[in-house]
């Protein structure tokens, strides 16, 4: 499923596009926008978008986001397969680097369809109200060769919390491969309630 990552994350382009649509409507109704104005707007859009597209492109990783949670002593493995990430990461320019990801909780799979449906509901991800999970880097620091620690802001169900994520980078030519693991307390984000059998801690593995 396409979650329209670019529409949401690349806000300047998104808002300008909307502006453009509004102006086109205006043109349709009144016919007051001339060819020069149109050209100017298109040129502006072009120069605004291109730097974004060149520096950081959104893509859908092959590997789903994996998570593990203990339920009645059994580890339940789950996946979120529909997600996108935008990477602009240079190990030599950590202050200018950024990683942003957005995941669609509707694509969650735990092996039991009805459980997945329950996870969509308001007691967990409440996807009608909160259709995305987002993760956005704030800063990075190096932790040895190809190892880093990022401070990220994770947003689930409208709750934003900063967390430290250690991750590794393996680079082959221009190809970068990242792998990070972190643990969250699901109750911090209002995912379900305290349970006698379901653990609070969820281990998350992200690889792209």
């Amino acid at each position, binding site marked *: 499923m396409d979650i329209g990552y670019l529409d949401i994350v690349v806000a300047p382009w998104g808002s300008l596009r909307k502006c453009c649509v509004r102006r086109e409507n205006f043109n349709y109704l009144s016919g007051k926008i001339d060819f020069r104005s149109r050209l100017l707007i298109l040129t502006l859009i072009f120069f605004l978008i291109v730097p974004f597209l060149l520096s950081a492109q959104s893509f859908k990783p092959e590997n789903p986001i994996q998570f593990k949670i203990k339920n*009645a002593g059994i580890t*339940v493995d789950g996946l979120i397969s529909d997600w996108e990430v935008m990477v602009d990461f240079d190990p030599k320019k950590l202050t200018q680097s950024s990683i942003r990801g957005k995941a669609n909780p509707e694509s969650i799979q735990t092996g039991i369809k009805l459980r997945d449906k329950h996870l969509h509901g308001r007691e967990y991800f409440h996807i009608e109200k909160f259709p995305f999970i987002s993760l956005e880097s704030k800063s990075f620091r190096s932790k040895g060769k190809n190892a880093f620690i990022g401070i990220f802001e994770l947003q689930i169900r409208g709750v934003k919390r900063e967390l430290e994520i250690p991750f590794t980078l393996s680079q082959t030519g221009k190809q970068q491969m990242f792998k990070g693991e972190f643990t969250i307390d699901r109750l911090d984000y209002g995912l379900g309630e305290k*349970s*006698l059998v379901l653990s609070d801690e969820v281990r998350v593995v992200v690889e792209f």
Partner: protein
Amino acid sequence: MKIKEWLSRLPLWLYGCMLLPLLAFGLSKQVVSYFSFSDIPRIWTDEAMKDWELPNSNPEYSAQPVSEEFYYNLPERVIYKTYPVYHPDHEPEGYWEWLHELEAEIVLDESKLLTEEDYIKAGELLFDYPIDTLGAVISTKHVRNIDFYTATEMPLTPEGIMPFAQWVVAGKGKVYLGNLSCAMCHTRVMDDGSLLKGAQGNWPGDKAFAFALETDGASERAIQNITSFLFASPFAEGDPHGKLLATGKEAILEAYRAVPEGAFGRQGTSILFPPQAPNLIGVKDRKYLDHGGLGQHRNIEDMMRYISMNQALDFLNFYGDYNPIGLTKERLNSGEPIFFPGTYDRHSDAQLYALAKYIYSLSPPENPNKPSELSESGKIIFAEQGCVTCHTPPLFTNNKLTPTDGFEVPDAHYDKYDIFGISVGTDPGYTMKTRRGTGYYKVPSLLGLWYRGPFLHDASLANLEDLFDPARLKDDYVPTAFKPHDVKTKAVKGHEFGMELNEMDKKALIAYLLTL
């Protein structure tokens, strides 16, 4: 003199220590165990009755109970000594004549109830006590007819006692068959003939009622009327009970006969969507009462309200402007008594308190299914399959309400009730088309499965094995327990868990479930 002097020299703290045994064994016992009437809650207050029950799935038709004033103007019940009902072939010689020689004996004196134990004992008496002697379900001539036992396949104890009704002796020569005790629906005759009080009962009540109607030669009109009193819900979409009444006498009797033992179409429910008779053992820990979670159960007062309402007072409820027994609000509140079974008197608050205490005290018998290697592997499957999410140990329920298909949970309910926001797809009829329907089903506890059955809220499956049989999802399936009277086959849909397990895993899972 010397002793006095010696005593006076003892430090004060030592005197304090001498009082400790008193505190431990004397005073504390009195404080914990003794009750006074001021401890008995007044349960039927206008304020409390306002939102104790959940609204109907069609909220305009939510139950409006009688007022506090009306309720407390009803006379309190007098509890007479009762006597067992025997199958005629097992009745001791001279028993019937002996009963007619007896004087009435009042067996419950509330002023003598002092300790918790007193209340529990009185509660058991009340649990067995029939609140109707007008023949609400069956009467003397039925239970003294041998055909009654054959037609209904009535479970009996080894002594030949039919434990679901009692003889009430209200005076010399006044021997009445008593109906509508708690024990009627919540007593199970076990395979070995022993009685298990509070369990999912196996009283074949609807078969018994069909026998009574038929052998009494009740007219079609009479059968339609009584069936309407019991189940009509003209405000429900499609009015299924109205349609049943229109099909005539024979079809209605067939509908009664179709309800298996272990289920019972009590008033406000349905014989089209009959509820499984609930297991009361362990009910203390459950947050909702009734399959649809109609009554909240937050404290003992709620349990007392539920008992009082369910024994028959819901016949006096209004659902919008509709009353099941055809009363108008003017007639209800005219001050004239209403002679309808169970509605012309009431239990006192102390009696209800005793009943609730007894019900809370019920404990399961020893489970003969001990943990084994097989059941232990079933325990792991139980966790792997995610059963624990809803059937969470140690109660084996998460005590939540699941909306049925077609019911949209109002936003306000999420804050007010315990909602598990998905449907498991079981038959929505009971909770969408009856007077007691809320739009929800409560998540049932799995405790005591070994002594229970049939299963699911509508008692459609006789065995646990059937639950995991994918064949039940097909339209050509013949339900192993409740099957509506007007169909030959019917899919038993919903709760589609564990169906893809291999046979060995299913066996292990069932072995585990039977240990609970």
